[in-house]
């Protein structure tokens, strides 16, 4: 037991004395979360737009005003001729231009032929689609109000509604994904690198030629990273809730349990990598290439698994991250409890058991 604690103390010395380890462990997760949150999201905020409005009546002014005061857009310019449309789009300062037809209000009320022309900057199709949705929603919303007031017998009721994520906030998707990724990164990469470092510097030779049991060496390598991962988990959750306004709608306790289980799985993967890798750079490459890439692309974090070819769908099932992300989404966003994630808990438990058995078996009591 004394050996165990001395080893853990030593491990924390390593971590706290190496600036880059600290950066990777504590700063990187926050940076990743912020990057995914603000830079990489397809969500639109404060996009500029221009208006060409030949009718200038109450309806067009209302619509323009509503777009302007929404948190997504602001009115950048009012155009005086249709020729300016392309010019202002080329300038790059606006994301779209709204062109109203002439005599807009009258046509809308009497003939129903009022038209709005939405001209978008299509260079980034993802953003364009999002903008299109937002603008359409705002205009439809206005139209809806008019129809309500008009008490007309015929109503065209176009209703768009997104379940669970009504505002289509991408943070709802990326927070669980980034959680899955960061925990995998910190646990698997840092444990495998720290074990590989002992092999590289030769200290592993001395540890092996000592009365310390392999199981104790492994456990004392794992414990500090388990602890730090828990800190990371809490930071990410706090940032998710307070910075990105992603609620923990479901059972917090269930969320913690599944997270601890996932941390355990990731640590076991790190141990497994370290039994193969004899140098830090190899450990880094294996955990970077063989773990991070599949987690990013196959776990459903960036691309929906349902759209993948069958082969890749099968691969995705093998990723612990896929199961974890599903479970986190179920709890945080759909607001479900234990009952909803039993399958995920089961799969992760099996994975943990298999991986830890394998890595204990593979741990070498000799140099090769």
């Amino acid at each position, binding site marked *: 037991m004394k050996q165990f604690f001395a080893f853990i103390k*030593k491990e924390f010395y390593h971590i706290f004395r*190496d600036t880059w380890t600290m950066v990777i462990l504590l700063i990187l997760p926050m940076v990743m979360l912020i990057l995914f949150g603000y830079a990489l999201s397809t969500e639109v905020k404060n996009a500029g737009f221009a208006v060409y409005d030949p009718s200038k009546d109450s309806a067009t002014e209302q619509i323009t005003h509503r777009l302007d005061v929404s948190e997504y857009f602001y009115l950048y310019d009012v155009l005086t001729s249709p020729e300016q449309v392309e010019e202002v789009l080329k300038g790059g300062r606006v994301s779209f231009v709204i062109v109203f037809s002439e005599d807009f209000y009258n046509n809308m009320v009497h003939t129903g032929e009022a038209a709005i022309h939405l001209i978008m900057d299509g260079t980034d199709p993802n953003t364009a689609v999002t903008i299109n949705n937002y603008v359409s929603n705002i205009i439809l919303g206005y139209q809806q109000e008019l129809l309500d007031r008009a008490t007309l017998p015929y109503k065209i009721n176009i209703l768009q509604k997104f379940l669970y994520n009504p505002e289509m906030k991408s943070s709802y998707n990326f927070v669980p994904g980034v959680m899955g990724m960061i925990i995998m990164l910190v646990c698997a990469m840092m444990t495998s690198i720290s074990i590989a470092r002992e092999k590289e510097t030769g200290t592993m030779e001395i540890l092996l030629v000592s009365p310390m049991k392999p199981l104790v060496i492994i456990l004392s390598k794992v414990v500090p990273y388990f602890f730090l991962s828990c800190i990371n988990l809490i930071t990410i959750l706090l940032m998710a809730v307070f910075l990105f306004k992603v609620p923990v709608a479901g059972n917090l306790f269930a969320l913690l349990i599944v997270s601890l289980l996932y941390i355990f799985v990731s640590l076991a993967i790190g141990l497994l990598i370290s039994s193969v890798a004899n140098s830090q750079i190899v450990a880094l490459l294996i955990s970077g290439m063989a773990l991070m890439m599949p987690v990013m692309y196959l776990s459903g974090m960036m691309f929906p698994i349902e759209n993948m070819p069958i082969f890749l769908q099968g691969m995705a099932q093998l990723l612990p991250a896929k199961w974890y992300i599903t479970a986190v989404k179920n709890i945080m966003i759909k607001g479900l409890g234990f009952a909803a994630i039993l399958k995920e808990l089961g799969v992760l438990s099996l994975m943990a058991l298999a991986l830890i058995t394998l890595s204990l078996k593979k741990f070498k009591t000799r140099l090769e």
Partner: protein
Amino acid sequence: MAESKYQMNRIMVQGHNIFRKYGKVQALSDISFEVMEGEIFGVIGPDGAGKTTLFRILTTLLLADQGQAMVNGFDVVEDYTSIRKKIGYMPGKFSLYQDLTVQENLDFFATVFNTTIEENYHLIRDIYVQLEPFKSRRAGALSGGMKQKLALCCALIHKPEILFLDEPTTGVDPVSRREFWEMLGKLKAQGITIIVSTPYMDEAEKCDRIALIQGGSFIQIDTPENIKDGYANPLYAVSSESMYALLKDLRSCERVKSCYPFGDAHHVTFFDDSFTSEDLEKFLQSKGHNDNNISKIRPTIEDCFMNLSSPGDAS
């Protein structure tokens, strides 16, 4: 002194026909030897001769392809856990935690070996006293000599019965090397069996017995004195003003069996004793070398090594 205190008849380490391959390279072939309790046993040979491989097999870190090894009566394969409790090992590369201080390293290894610094303080006292001023310095910031002393401290902290030191003095300054060997002498006096490897031939003289290793095989095992006595031909040290021309001319002489530069003189042997140093003097003067200095010398271990390891050796 030490010899009288401990009986030198118990075998501590034993190897039988050990073979080991790395890929296609035969790192060790047919190594057999015995090390007695309380002796300093030196494994002497150049880099790449197989010293580290042998040490790793004996310290239970590597498996031999063939052959057996016993350490303190335990088999290195079957009873490796028993061996690991009894031995101290200092790998060739500095293998302590560079980001931990001297004190932290010592404390850590003491705990790992289930002991404390106080418990075996008498063993490490001489070394520890020198380290003490740097107690709170990180190990990575120590000089080469200090690093080796710290590593030795850490390997000694659990009072091992056998100490394996793999090239402990490589990259260490001459003064620290001498101090290091003095310490080994003291440890030997405490009854610790020491197996040490080194590429420095002059250090061989400080061992009780040595094994000369070359290309993965032991070419001779004996005391340094016996090895030197066994040198077949009389050996001469030859020097003159133009050492390079001298070497070329010596090698061109058909009576000269071997000639190689050795510090500030060339070491020369002849094919038969009928050729004397006077004959050589005449030969050299005929080649235009004046001011020659030829003297018969007692061979060093390095001479023996060169002689034994030279290919096509007739003796």
